[in-house]
Protein backbone atom coordinates (compact mmCIF):
# COMPACT_ATOMS: atom_id res chain seq x y z
CA UNK A 1 0.00 0.00 0.00
CA UNK A 2 1.29 3.50 -0.74
CA UNK A 3 2.72 5.80 1.90
CA UNK A 4 -0.23 8.21 1.72
CA UNK A 5 -2.00 9.07 4.92
CA UNK A 6 -5.52 7.67 4.92
CA UNK A 7 -8.38 8.37 7.28
CA UNK A 8 -10.84 5.55 7.97
CA UNK A 9 -13.89 5.15 10.18
CA UNK A 10 -13.92 2.22 12.57
CA UNK A 11 -17.10 0.98 14.22
CA UNK A 12 -17.75 -1.48 16.98
CA UNK A 13 -21.08 -2.66 18.40
CA UNK A 14 -21.56 -3.40 22.09
CA UNK A 15 -24.54 -5.08 23.68
CA UNK A 16 -26.01 -4.60 27.12
CA UNK A 17 -29.26 -5.51 28.78
CA UNK A 18 -30.82 -3.12 31.24
CA UNK A 19 -34.06 -2.06 32.86
CA UNK A 20 -35.53 1.41 32.79
CA UNK A 21 -38.67 3.37 33.41
CA UNK A 22 -39.61 6.65 31.77
CA UNK A 23 -40.83 8.88 34.54
CA UNK A 24 -40.46 12.55 35.50
CA UNK A 25 -40.98 13.43 39.15
CA UNK A 26 -42.13 16.94 38.27
CA UNK A 27 -45.14 15.57 36.35
CA UNK A 28 -48.26 14.09 37.96
CA UNK A 29 -48.98 10.37 37.72
CA UNK A 30 -51.57 11.08 35.01
CA UNK A 31 -49.19 13.29 33.05
CA UNK A 32 -46.46 10.67 33.27
CA UNK A 33 -48.83 8.00 31.99
CA UNK A 34 -50.09 10.29 29.22
CA UNK A 35 -46.57 11.18 28.13
CA UNK A 36 -44.74 7.88 28.47
CA UNK A 37 -47.54 5.30 28.11
CA UNK A 38 -46.46 1.75 28.88
CA UNK A 39 -42.87 2.93 29.37
CA UNK A 40 -44.10 4.55 32.62
CA UNK A 41 -45.01 1.17 34.15
CA UNK A 42 -43.94 1.63 37.80
CA UNK A 43 -42.15 -1.73 37.85
CA UNK A 44 -39.97 -0.75 34.90
CA UNK A 45 -39.19 -2.88 31.87
CA UNK A 46 -36.01 -3.76 29.97
CA UNK A 47 -34.26 -3.93 26.62
CA UNK A 48 -31.30 -5.50 24.92
CA UNK A 49 -29.53 -2.34 23.88
CA UNK A 50 -26.94 -2.03 21.15
CA UNK A 51 -24.34 0.75 21.22
CA UNK A 52 -22.53 1.31 17.94
CA UNK A 53 -19.43 3.44 18.43
CA UNK A 54 -17.75 5.01 15.37
CA UNK A 55 -14.34 6.62 15.63
CA UNK A 56 -12.17 8.02 12.86
CA UNK A 57 -8.48 8.63 12.45
CA UNK A 58 -5.44 7.90 10.33
CA UNK A 59 -4.70 4.24 9.64
CA UNK A 60 -1.44 3.72 11.51
CA UNK A 61 1.21 2.66 8.98
CA UNK A 62 2.81 0.21 11.37
CA UNK A 63 -0.23 -1.57 12.77
CA UNK A 64 -2.74 -0.99 9.96
CA UNK A 65 -5.22 0.15 12.57
CA UNK A 66 -7.18 3.29 13.44
CA UNK A 67 -7.47 2.04 17.00
CA UNK A 68 -6.49 -1.23 18.60
CA UNK A 69 -9.76 -3.07 19.09
CA UNK A 70 -8.60 -4.53 22.37
CA UNK A 71 -8.02 -0.99 23.72
CA UNK A 72 -11.52 0.07 22.69
CA UNK A 73 -13.06 -3.14 24.06
CA UNK A 74 -11.24 -2.75 27.36
CA UNK A 75 -12.37 0.87 27.62
CA UNK A 76 -15.97 -0.09 26.78
CA UNK A 77 -15.91 -2.86 29.37
CA UNK A 78 -14.45 -0.68 32.11
CA UNK A 79 -16.21 2.61 31.45
CA UNK A 80 -19.55 1.49 30.08
CA UNK A 81 -20.53 -2.19 30.15
CA UNK A 82 -19.55 -2.80 33.78
CA UNK A 83 -21.84 0.06 34.71
CA UNK A 84 -24.73 -0.40 32.28
CA UNK A 85 -25.05 -4.15 31.70
CA UNK A 86 -27.71 -5.82 33.85
CA UNK A 87 -28.36 -2.54 35.62
CA UNK A 88 -31.43 -0.44 36.15
CA UNK A 89 -30.61 2.74 34.23
CA UNK A 90 -32.82 4.83 36.51
CA UNK A 91 -30.54 3.94 39.41
CA UNK A 92 -27.37 5.15 37.68
CA UNK A 93 -25.78 8.41 38.75
CA UNK A 94 -25.54 9.33 35.04
CA UNK A 95 -29.32 9.74 34.87
CA UNK A 96 -29.97 11.38 38.18
CA UNK A 97 -31.30 14.49 36.42
CA UNK A 98 -32.45 12.99 33.13
CA UNK A 99 -35.12 10.61 31.91
CA UNK A 100 -33.66 7.33 30.69
CA UNK A 101 -34.94 7.66 27.15
CA UNK A 102 -32.61 6.15 24.60
CA UNK A 103 -32.01 9.69 23.30
CA UNK A 104 -30.51 10.59 26.67
CA UNK A 105 -28.64 7.28 26.94
CA UNK A 106 -27.20 7.92 23.47
CA UNK A 107 -25.97 11.39 24.50
CA UNK A 108 -24.49 9.88 27.69
CA UNK A 109 -22.66 7.27 25.59
CA UNK A 110 -21.18 10.14 23.60
CA UNK A 111 -19.71 11.68 26.74
CA UNK A 112 -18.31 8.32 27.84
CA UNK A 113 -16.67 7.43 24.52
CA UNK A 114 -15.48 11.00 23.98
CA UNK A 115 -13.07 10.23 26.83
CA UNK A 116 -11.64 7.38 24.74
CA UNK A 117 -10.91 9.85 21.92
CA UNK A 118 -9.07 12.02 24.45
CA UNK A 119 -6.62 9.26 25.46
CA UNK A 120 -3.03 10.26 24.86
CA UNK A 121 -2.39 7.02 22.93
CA UNK A 122 -4.77 8.25 20.23
CA UNK A 123 -4.12 11.95 19.69
CA UNK A 124 -5.70 11.97 16.22
CA UNK A 125 -8.70 9.76 16.87
CA UNK A 126 -12.10 11.47 16.84
CA UNK A 127 -15.44 10.21 18.02
CA UNK A 128 -17.73 10.48 14.98
CA UNK A 129 -21.00 8.95 15.98
CA UNK A 130 -22.91 7.00 18.60
CA UNK A 131 -25.79 4.96 17.26
CA UNK A 132 -28.03 3.15 19.72
CA UNK A 133 -30.69 0.55 19.16
CA UNK A 134 -33.28 0.22 21.89
CA UNK A 135 -35.08 -2.53 19.97
CA UNK A 136 -34.52 -3.85 16.47
CA UNK A 137 -37.00 -1.24 15.25
CA UNK A 138 -35.80 1.87 17.09
CA UNK A 139 -32.48 3.59 16.68
CA UNK A 140 -30.93 6.89 17.69
CA UNK A 141 -27.82 8.61 16.40
CA UNK A 142 -25.81 11.35 18.03
CA UNK A 143 -22.96 13.22 16.39
CA UNK A 144 -22.04 15.48 19.31
CA UNK A 145 -23.01 19.09 19.83
CA UNK A 146 -26.49 20.55 19.87
CA UNK A 147 -29.37 19.71 17.52
CA UNK A 148 -27.55 16.68 16.18
CA UNK A 149 -29.68 13.83 17.44
CA UNK A 150 -31.39 11.70 14.81
CA UNK A 151 -34.12 9.30 15.93
CA UNK A 152 -35.48 6.58 13.67
CA UNK A 153 -38.40 4.28 14.11
CA UNK A 154 -39.08 1.49 11.65
Amino acid sequence: MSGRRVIAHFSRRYHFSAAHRLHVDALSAEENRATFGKCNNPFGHGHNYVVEVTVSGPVDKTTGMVVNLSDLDLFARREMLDLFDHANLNELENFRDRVTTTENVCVEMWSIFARFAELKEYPEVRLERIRMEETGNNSFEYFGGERQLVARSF
Partner: protein
Amino acid sequence: MILLTRKAEFSAAHFYWNPAWSEEENVRVFGKCANRQGHGHNYTLEVTVEGEIDPVSGFVVDLKQLKDILEREVVSVYDHRHLNFEVPEFEHAIPTTENIAVAIWRRLEGKIENAKLHRVRVYEMPDLFADFYGEGA
Protein backbone atom coordinates in the same frame (compact mmCIF):
# COMPACT_ATOMS: atom_id res chain seq x y z
CA MET B 1 -27.90 12.61 -6.18
CA ILE B 2 -28.80 9.22 -4.79
CA LEU B 3 -26.78 6.54 -3.03
CA LEU B 4 -26.97 2.90 -3.94
CA THR B 5 -25.39 0.05 -1.98
CA ARG B 6 -24.51 -3.43 -3.10
CA LYS B 7 -23.33 -6.17 -0.75
CA ALA B 8 -20.95 -9.02 -1.45
CA GLU B 9 -19.44 -11.66 0.79
CA PHE B 10 -16.13 -13.41 0.95
CA SER B 11 -14.48 -15.77 3.39
CA ALA B 12 -10.78 -15.51 3.98
CA ALA B 13 -7.96 -16.26 6.40
CA HIS B 14 -5.57 -13.72 7.86
CA PHE B 15 -3.38 -12.86 10.81
CA TYR B 16 -1.78 -9.68 12.12
CA TRP B 17 1.97 -9.61 12.20
CA ASN B 18 4.58 -6.90 11.87
CA PRO B 19 7.87 -8.52 10.76
CA ALA B 20 9.85 -5.58 12.15
CA TRP B 21 8.75 -6.49 15.68
CA SER B 22 9.66 -9.28 18.06
CA GLU B 23 7.20 -12.08 18.72
CA GLU B 24 6.45 -10.59 22.16
CA GLU B 25 5.68 -7.18 20.68
CA ASN B 26 3.38 -8.68 18.03
CA VAL B 27 1.50 -10.69 20.65
CA ARG B 28 1.27 -7.69 22.95
CA VAL B 29 -0.24 -5.45 20.25
CA PHE B 30 -2.27 -7.92 18.20
CA GLY B 31 -3.25 -10.50 20.83
CA LYS B 32 -4.77 -13.67 19.44
CA CYS B 33 -4.83 -12.12 15.94
CA ALA B 34 -1.03 -12.57 15.88
CA ASN B 35 -1.30 -16.37 15.69
CA ARG B 36 0.70 -17.11 12.55
CA GLN B 37 -1.32 -20.20 11.77
CA GLY B 38 -3.96 -17.66 10.74
CA HIS B 39 -7.69 -17.57 11.45
CA GLY B 40 -10.64 -16.65 9.30
CA HIS B 41 -13.82 -14.64 8.91
CA ASN B 42 -16.89 -14.37 6.76
CA TYR B 43 -16.49 -10.82 5.55
CA THR B 44 -19.35 -8.71 4.25
CA LEU B 45 -18.52 -5.94 1.83
CA GLU B 46 -20.90 -3.04 1.26
CA VAL B 47 -20.06 -0.79 -1.65
CA THR B 48 -22.01 2.47 -1.89
CA VAL B 49 -21.97 4.51 -5.09
CA GLU B 50 -23.46 7.92 -5.72
CA GLY B 51 -24.91 9.26 -8.93
CA GLU B 52 -27.97 10.56 -10.71
CA ILE B 53 -30.95 8.43 -11.69
CA ASP B 54 -30.90 7.82 -15.42
CA PRO B 55 -34.29 9.09 -16.71
CA VAL B 56 -34.58 6.28 -19.23
CA SER B 57 -33.43 3.23 -17.25
CA GLY B 58 -34.31 4.49 -13.77
CA PHE B 59 -30.89 3.21 -12.65
CA VAL B 60 -27.99 4.95 -10.98
CA VAL B 61 -25.76 2.15 -12.16
CA ASP B 62 -26.47 -1.10 -13.87
CA LEU B 63 -26.58 -3.51 -10.90
CA LYS B 64 -25.34 -6.36 -13.02
CA GLN B 65 -22.32 -4.28 -13.98
CA LEU B 66 -21.69 -3.43 -10.32
CA LYS B 67 -22.09 -7.05 -9.25
CA ASP B 68 -19.68 -8.19 -11.96
CA ILE B 69 -17.10 -5.56 -10.94
CA LEU B 70 -17.28 -6.61 -7.28
CA GLU B 71 -16.92 -10.23 -8.30
CA ARG B 72 -14.01 -9.59 -10.64
CA GLU B 73 -12.07 -7.00 -8.62
CA VAL B 74 -12.65 -8.26 -5.08
CA VAL B 75 -14.48 -11.52 -4.48
CA SER B 76 -12.55 -13.58 -7.03
CA VAL B 77 -9.29 -12.30 -5.52
CA TYR B 78 -10.20 -12.49 -1.80
CA ASP B 79 -12.69 -15.34 -1.43
CA HIS B 80 -11.31 -18.53 0.10
CA ARG B 81 -7.82 -17.05 0.12
CA HIS B 82 -5.27 -16.32 2.78
CA LEU B 83 -5.05 -12.52 2.65
CA ASN B 84 -1.49 -12.34 4.00
CA PHE B 85 -0.06 -14.81 1.50
CA GLU B 86 -2.25 -14.64 -1.57
CA VAL B 87 -3.43 -11.05 -2.02
CA PRO B 88 -0.67 -8.73 -3.27
CA GLU B 89 -1.71 -5.56 -1.40
CA PHE B 90 -1.15 -7.32 1.92
CA GLU B 91 2.37 -8.38 1.18
CA HIS B 92 3.55 -5.26 3.00
CA ALA B 93 0.39 -4.13 4.82
CA ILE B 94 -1.35 -5.88 7.66
CA PRO B 95 -4.81 -7.10 6.56
CA THR B 96 -6.75 -5.28 9.25
CA THR B 97 -10.37 -4.41 8.52
CA GLU B 98 -9.28 -0.79 8.00
CA ASN B 99 -6.61 -1.74 5.46
CA ILE B 100 -8.99 -4.11 3.68
CA ALA B 101 -11.52 -1.27 3.27
CA VAL B 102 -8.81 1.02 1.87
CA ALA B 103 -7.50 -1.72 -0.46
CA ILE B 104 -10.97 -2.49 -1.80
CA TRP B 105 -11.58 1.22 -2.42
CA ARG B 106 -8.38 1.35 -4.48
CA ARG B 107 -9.40 -1.75 -6.42
CA LEU B 108 -12.80 -0.27 -7.30
CA GLU B 109 -12.00 3.40 -7.82
CA GLY B 110 -12.54 4.48 -11.42
CA LYS B 111 -13.97 1.12 -12.46
CA ILE B 112 -17.69 1.86 -12.06
CA GLU B 113 -19.32 3.59 -15.03
CA ASN B 114 -21.68 6.54 -14.49
CA ALA B 115 -21.31 6.63 -10.71
CA LYS B 116 -18.81 7.72 -8.12
CA LEU B 117 -17.61 5.54 -5.31
CA HIS B 118 -19.04 6.97 -2.05
CA ARG B 119 -18.17 4.49 0.67
CA VAL B 120 -16.60 1.08 1.15
CA ARG B 121 -17.72 -0.70 4.30
CA VAL B 122 -16.14 -3.99 5.36
CA TYR B 123 -17.62 -6.09 8.14
CA GLU B 124 -15.17 -8.53 9.67
CA MET B 125 -18.08 -9.73 11.79
CA PRO B 126 -21.51 -8.23 12.46
CA ASP B 127 -20.22 -6.18 15.40
CA LEU B 128 -17.07 -4.85 13.77
CA PHE B 129 -16.71 -2.84 10.59
CA ALA B 130 -14.54 -0.21 8.91
CA ASP B 131 -15.65 2.56 6.53
CA PHE B 132 -13.51 4.31 3.96
CA TYR B 133 -14.64 7.39 2.06
CA GLY B 134 -11.60 7.88 -0.17
CA GLU B 135 -8.19 9.45 0.07
CA GLY B 136 -9.48 13.00 0.36
CA ALA B 137 -12.09 12.33 3.05
